[in-house]
């Protein structure tokens, strides 16, 4: 039922997008998985789109489709954009990977950019951010600030990006408190404020005094605020929702990348590549550190500077949950190993769903 609905919504949105005006050098189009008003993932992508509009003025026209479900609807949405004369199409969710590749084959002259995927083609580039860098920092903060030594992690789906986030958080926490415990709850949704709030309550009831999330709504932070524990913002700065609870937030800033890629198309220098940058390129930004003692802020800033200087949080010694060695002392995990991560580090109190 819901998918019928969503496709109907998508169809309506398509009809609306069809009536846009012409006469710019390039039309850059964006496909979002959530509503632009989610104040999380899709919201941040749309902030990037707005930055493109502001930066290029009349030279670049933009269009977007929101709440496009992953699957056949996505393919229709992307193809519609391609037919409409979009020169550059950003598809901003992992599940758009195959639809993007399929449509790209039919439209060799249109350039595609797929976020968080791993399949490329001559006219399909991929881009992602090293969110795990930010997660390592918030893990360190959690390790310092947690009185119970237990943090709760609200996770969406067991895909490598989420798993590597959990591991980076844990490594950060263990770097200051080797006995740190992490409880993980999977809500199997990217966005369901009610469920996220329930999960946060369950974690707090079981002793977690730091809540962190890899889901998109502000609900867990609000629960943290009410219950007097602490947490971290996700994707956007959520300080307005949790003045006393938010310690910092990992902000996805897509604006620099979007502007760079649009510029490349305008200059005729665009070619397919895989971009994966983090704090050093400003693609991952830490929100101001709040509700923290000075020494913890100093530690966080130091780690941030270290990562910005090229240090990788996934540097050994790293032990997997089953006790085997993932990386020896001083050895840095390869990008592929991080992007395809399907194991927990030692100390995570959860069995990874397979």
């Amino acid at each position, binding site marked *: 039922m819901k998918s019928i609905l969503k496709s109907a*919504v998508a169809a309506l949105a398509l009809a609306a997008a069809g009536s846009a005006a012409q006469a710019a050098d390039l039309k850059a189009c964006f496909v979002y998985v959530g509503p632009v008003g989610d104040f999380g993932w899709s919201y941040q992508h749309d902030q990037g789109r707005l930055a493109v509009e502001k930066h290029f003025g009349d030279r670049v026209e933009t269009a977007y489709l929101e709440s496009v479900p992953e699957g056949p609807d996505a393919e229709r949405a992307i193809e519609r954009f391609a037919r409409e004369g979009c020169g550059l199409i950003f598809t901003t969710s992992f599940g758009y990977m195959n639809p993007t590749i399929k449509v790209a084959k039919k439209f060799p002259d249109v350039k595609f950019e797929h976020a968080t995927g791993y399949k490329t083609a001559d006219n399909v580039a991929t881009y992602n951010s090293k969110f795990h860098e930010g997660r390592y920092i918030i893990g360190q903060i959690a390790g310092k600030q947690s009185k119970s030594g237990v943090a709760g992690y609200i996770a969406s789906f067991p895909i490598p990006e989420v798993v590597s986030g959990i591991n980076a958080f844990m490594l950060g926490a263990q770097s200051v408190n080797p006995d740190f415990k992490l409880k993980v709850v999977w809500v199997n949704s990217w966005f369901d404020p009610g469920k996220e709030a329930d999960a946060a309550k369950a974690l707090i009831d*079981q002793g977690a005094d730091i809540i962190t999330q890899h889901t998109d709504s502000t609900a867990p932070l609000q629960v943290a605020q009410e219950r007097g524990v602490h947490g971290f913002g996700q994707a956007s700065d959520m300080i307005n929702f949790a003045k006393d609870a938010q310690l910092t937030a990992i902000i996805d800033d897509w604006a620099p990348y979007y502007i760079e890629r649009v510029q490349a198309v305008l200059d005729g220098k665009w070619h397919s590549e895989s971009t994966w940058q983090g704090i050093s390129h400003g693609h991952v930004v830490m929100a101001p550190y709040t509700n923290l003692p000075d020494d913890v802020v100093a530690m966080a800033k130091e780690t941030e500077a270290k990562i910005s200087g090229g240090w990788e949080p996934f540097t050994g010694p790293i032990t997997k949950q089953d006790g085997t060695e993932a990386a020896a002392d001083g050895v840095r995990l390869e990008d592929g190993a991080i992007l395809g991560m399907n194991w927990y580090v030692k100390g995570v109190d959860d069995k990874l769903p397979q």
Partner: protein
Amino acid sequence: MFEAVLLTVITAATPLLIAAIGELVVERSGVLNLGVEGMMIMGAVVGFAVANQTGSGTLGVVAAIIAGMAMSALFGFLVLVLVTNQVASGLSLTILGLGLSGMIGEAFIGVPGLRLPELYIPVLSEIPFIGPVFFQQDAVVYLGFALVFAVSYVLFKTRAGLVLRAVGDNHTSAHALGYSVVRVRFLAILFGGACAGLAGAYMSLAYTPQWVENMTAGRGWIALALVVFASWLPFRVVAGAYLFGAVTVLTFHAQAQGLGIPSQFLSSLPYLATIAVLVLISANRRLTLVNTPACLGKPFVPDR
């Protein structure tokens, strides 16, 4: 610990309960309104907006109820006066609600909301365990319970309820007896809209006090399923809503305990429970026939 779990369950169950009890009345009158999700999300956004602008949670709740009723009035006009297809009209109501609420709510994204205050019922709230769980809630939770009792009473103990059920079971006979089928159904639809609006207000003013698009996240559809689950009986709606809320919350606790049960399986548990109960109910044909409104979803055009 148990107390904390129960508190969370009540919060999770209340919006489902309220929306479902409203839809139950609508369906008892013979109308299937699939627009619960749309009315609920409109209640959520209007409730949030009004509470935010006026600073009064009560006004927010009232406005949400009115918004839900306005949406349902539109639906009522379509299916009762223009005799459009109920399924299609209900679906469009949901789509309309989701879109319209996004537009209205644009200015309120990222704005923290206010939470409905908890009302401590004197004496009762001091009973150990039961007090904190059942008598230290916000007004909407109490209202939800009151609604169940009221609906059950009116449906089965009053003349008005008899007429409503007659209209739902056999609109031609009810019409022949001189009852206005359209008027009864319209009032039932309005009641359903009011409940959905109230459930939406609970989402944006108590459950998660904020506005984000699509924040009801399919709860309207679950409410619809609950009505069937309850075989159109009010107290079974309570059981269904609490079962659903309890299973959802307990799956999170099971995960946090590290029991090692696959989370995907846990997430599907509430739905599996619904299917199991539906199978059990339909096994008893007689009971099903007695309680299913016979004219559910059938259009009626008065001949005079």
